[in-house]
């Protein structure tokens, strides 16, 4: 097995990973210390899922806006389950990071005078979302990737699949990775490791996520004893394309798009988001600009009431953009027009776009402290894989791209500082853990079982959708939990068709499925035990339809248990800056301090 000594290993080449790498490099330069920084990613960095983000990144920008307002929106949006100290740090640093991106060449959309333009976004009081047309994530990711090329100290191992982290005496000691091109294993001994492996949306059948968003990093940390926190909060985006799940950005609504049911009625006014705002005059926090959880839930209600239309075999409602006119649409939402045309053969200029909710974002993740460090010393997590505590029970659109930057940077700096002070672990335990991975792979290759990953995966995603969907109840979740545990057992009996070493994508999908099974269990367990409705988590049972601050103003923490089912604990929430209040939108939200 090849081995290298690397001061800082970063797993993941998405927005968070790249930002961390640059921060680490800068930090090392500042301290005049020679540090090797290695970025590993299972796909080339610019293929990472950040590339798909469309809408924008939030930061307080205009003079009328205030930090307090961004703070309040985020905390209320998260139904008071956000760590308020973390939110405070976030809102203070977001603007700086976006300016930094601009300084690195990111082509933010501009006002005629050359300053940066902002747009409205759901759940935000005022327009504070920076955007680069409707390809914000694309431009951010490419800007970060290209900027990273400027730093010779950032080395990369592209198309390396990280199998596991190595932990010695409660501190991270390295990572073990598989070179996809050849199937060889590499052990990277490290002083700091940053996980930036993204979310786990692929656990669900119908989702907006890329194929690689399988929660690998979460599973690795989980197995080493780090808690997965708040996993029950899974964001459904209200506007995915039927069939593929491809996302139609919230910016469509920010620009004035409206949602109607099959009768052409703007149904959102029936769900506490009214009164109806005039066509072409979107108003923050009203109607279409309510938060995602509320909108997705309203869809579900309409569906139950039989007021949704059909597209193919999907139930759909309609996103109508026609009143915005061709020129405006082509200028502001060119990618959306392209996607609708290509994937469902609909021209948004002429027809409303059929849409339905799709799983979009994992609010929960690897628990870290406010400095992005996990309970394993030297192991950091940032980006969608992490639960630093920013989003609480529901993420506001455009907060996560800013999160990648703010916390990616923080993680990078912290990792670099740590690497400057500690030594490489020198222990046979490290070798052993690497060998264990080798054995595990060999066993997978040799396994003569009769299970096939395709079957297992299909059952998993279907079951997650059924049991942990927009609305949940105990029975369904119990079923799902049993299915998952059953699948975990069957997974041990899996068999590969493809036995080759080089580019064995079947092997990788098996490994990803293995990761998914662990995370699914944590998600389902958290959902089952949270006997209240909060943010993205909605229970159908009579007693659980309200938020219950007495019992559940708490983070869920799920711990891995090698011997049996995972364990759930509750953790207090930091609410020292803003006491829980009612979360209301539309006219109902008027006057409520948010």
């Amino acid at each position, binding site marked *: 097995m090849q081995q290298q000594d690397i001061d800082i290993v970063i797993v993941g080449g998405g927005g968070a990973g790249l930002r961390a790498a640059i921060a680490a490099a800068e930090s090392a330069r500042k301290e005049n210390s020679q540090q090797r920084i290695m970025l590993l990613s299972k796909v080339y960095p610019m293929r990472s899922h950040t590339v798909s983000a469309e809408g924008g990144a939030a930061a307080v920008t205009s003079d009328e806006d205030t930090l307090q307002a961004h703070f309040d929106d985020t905390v209320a949006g998260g139904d008071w389950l956000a760590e308020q100290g973390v939110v405070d740090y976030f809102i203070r640093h977001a603007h700086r990071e976006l300016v930094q991106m601009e300084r690195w060449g990111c082509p933010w959309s501009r006002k005629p005078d050359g300053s940066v333009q902002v747009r409205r976004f759901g759940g935000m009081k005022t327009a504070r979302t920076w955007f680069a047309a409707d390809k914000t994530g694309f431009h951010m990711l490419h800007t970060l990737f290209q900027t990273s090329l400027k730093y*010779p100290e950032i*080395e*990369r*191992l*592209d198309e390396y699949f990280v199998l596991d982290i190595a932990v010695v005496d409660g501190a991270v000691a390295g990572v073990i990775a598989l070179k996809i091109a050849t199937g060889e294993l590499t052990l990277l001994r490290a002083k700091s490791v940053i996980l930036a492996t993204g979310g786990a949306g692929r656990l669900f059948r119908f989702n907006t996520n890329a194929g690689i968003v399988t929660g690998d990093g979460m599973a690795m940390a989980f197995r080493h004893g780090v808690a997965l926190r708040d996993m029950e909060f899974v964001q459904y985006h209200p506007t995915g394309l039927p069939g593929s799940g491809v996302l139609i950005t919230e910016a469509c609504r920010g620009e004035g798009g409206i949602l109607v049911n099959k009768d052409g009625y703007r149904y959102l006014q029936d769900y506490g988001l009214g009164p109806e705002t005039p066509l072409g005059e979107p108003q923050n926090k009203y109607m279409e600009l309510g938060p995602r959880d509320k909108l997705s839930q309203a869809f579900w209600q309409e569906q139950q009431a039989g007021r949704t239309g059909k597209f193919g075999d999907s139930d759909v409602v309609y996103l109508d953009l026609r009143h915005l006119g061709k020129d405006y649409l082509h200028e502001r939402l060119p990618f959306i027009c392209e996607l609708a045309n290509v994937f469902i053969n609909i021209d948004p200029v002429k027809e409303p776009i059929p849409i339905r909710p799709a799983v979009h974002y994992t609010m929960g993740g690897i628990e870290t402290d406010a400095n992005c460090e996990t309970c394993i010393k030297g192991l950091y997590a940032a980006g969608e894989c992490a639960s630093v505590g920013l989003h609480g029970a529901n993420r506001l659109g455009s907060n996560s791209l800013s999160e990648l930057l703010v916390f990616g940077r923080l993680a990078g700096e912290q990792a670099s500082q740590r690497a400057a002070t500690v030594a490489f672990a020198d222990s046979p335990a490290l070798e052993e853990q690497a060998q264990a991975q080798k054995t595990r792979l060999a066993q997978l290759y040799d396994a003569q079982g009769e299970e096939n990953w395709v079957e297992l995966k299909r059952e998993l995603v279907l079951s997650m959708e059924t049991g942990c969907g927009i609305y949940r109840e105990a029975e369904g979740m119990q079923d799902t939990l049993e299915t998952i545990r059953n699948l975990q057992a069957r997974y041990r009996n899996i068999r590969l068709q493809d036995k080759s070493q080089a580019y064995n994508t079947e092997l990788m999908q098996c490994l990803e499925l293995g990761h998914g099974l662990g995370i699914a269990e944590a998600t389902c367990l958290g959902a089952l035990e949270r006997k209240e409705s909060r943010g993205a988590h909605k229970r159908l049972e009579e007693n659980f339809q309200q938020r219950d601050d007495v019992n559940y103003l708490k983070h869920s923490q799920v711990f891995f248990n090698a011997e049996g089912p995972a364990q759930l604990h509750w953790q207090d929430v930091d609410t020292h800056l803003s006491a829980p209040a009612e979360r209301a939108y539309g006219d109902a939200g008027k006057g409520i301090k948010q």
Partner: protein
Amino acid sequence: MNKGTSLNNDTSENMKRSDEPIWWGLFSAGGVCFAVFVPAAILFIALLIPAGIIAPEALSFDRARSMLFSLPGLIFIGVVICLPLFHAAHRIRHGLHDLKLGKEHLNKRVTYGGAALLSALALVGFAVGIL
């Protein structure tokens, strides 16, 4: 690993400036001439007049001499003969490369050399004519 390939070492050999701008400049100028002036030239000199469709006397010996051996004639030689020659040489050279024929530096000499030689001949002819 993605660093340290030959492309990133800017040794002077590696980063040598190509002399192509000269040839490309001539090619482009010639291309404009080929597109704008040559069609008319072919149409009248090689098609309509020889075929007797219009004005067969237009190219009588005296008329031809006075037209060609004059300042406009010199311009004609430049834009209808010399520059298009370099245009053609450039495309032939790249065409040979496309067809994987010959050797790059040799092709270059033959094609541009040929264009230069023929242009020189045209100018010499013009000089003789005007004197």
